[in-house]
């Protein structure tokens, strides 16, 4: 990925977006992280991209969906059969 190994050239946006996950996962080596953060500080487009990505990930963590009623029904029945003799209510 690194084209110029000698000097740390500045990142461009196209490279930045491909490093976002490594950055969020704290897997960038110190030098790469510094380049990433230097670009972040001066590019509104990339700052917005990263911020959106963080917000999106946080929102994914708050997804809940009531279980399908048909499934719920079938499962509750199966569970009752299973534990019927043992516990009464479930």
């Amino acid at each position, binding site marked *: 990925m690194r084209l110029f190994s000698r000097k740390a050239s500045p990142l461009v946006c196209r490279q930045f977006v491909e490093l976002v996950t*490594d950055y969020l996962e704290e897997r960038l080596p110190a030098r790469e992280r510094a380049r990433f953060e230097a670009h972040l500080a001066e590019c509104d*487009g990339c700052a917005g991209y990263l911020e959106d990505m963080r917000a999106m990930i946080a929102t994914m*963590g708050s*997804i809940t969906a009531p279980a399908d009623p048909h*499934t719920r029904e079938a499962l509750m029945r199966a569970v009752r059969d299973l534990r019927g003799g043992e516990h009464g209510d*479930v």
Partner: protein
Amino acid sequence: MSEEDVLLQRLRAGDQAAFEALLDRYDAPLRRVARSFLRTPTAVEEVVQETWLAVVTGIDGFEGRSMFRTWLFRILVNRARSRSVRDARLITFSALEGDEGPAVDPNAFGEDGRWRSAPARLEFDPETRLLQDELRSELVGAIESLPDQQRVVVTLRDVVGLSAEEVCEMLDITEVNQRVLLHRGRARTRAVLRAPLPEVRR
């Protein structure tokens, strides 16, 4: 004691409402993961149901050494895998799908590698944002539309909240592959969210 620990304690005591609360929390992501391993809706249904029954029968033996969700998804993945061997649909994580090229559409950038125009923001901004519920349902649709491997990893990491280590172990993939799939899955999810409407399918 966490809210979930309380639910588990109630489940052990045979409390039906506790079981229903766990269903609401985990049934959809269980299905999403199962769907990546299994060919037919029937197989998905069966494996998910088996998993829940295994939870009810096994809950007394669950010692809380790992988190409940780790235990739960491990049961699912193991069952889905042995089932998918029989049904000849085993997604192998050894070969990454769609692993060529950048995760973000290169047309978004000019020849100098900069954004052609600043990327449109997702509307999380309090002034303009979509209602959270609406956003969540769009997100669910976007995750559903991911390729199998990416859907599994994004679901386990970002929706369920397992750690990278847990996901690697569960799927038997390397840390690097896990991260590549997560990266591609997230970038694609974001792209689908931003898409005007129907077209963006695979």
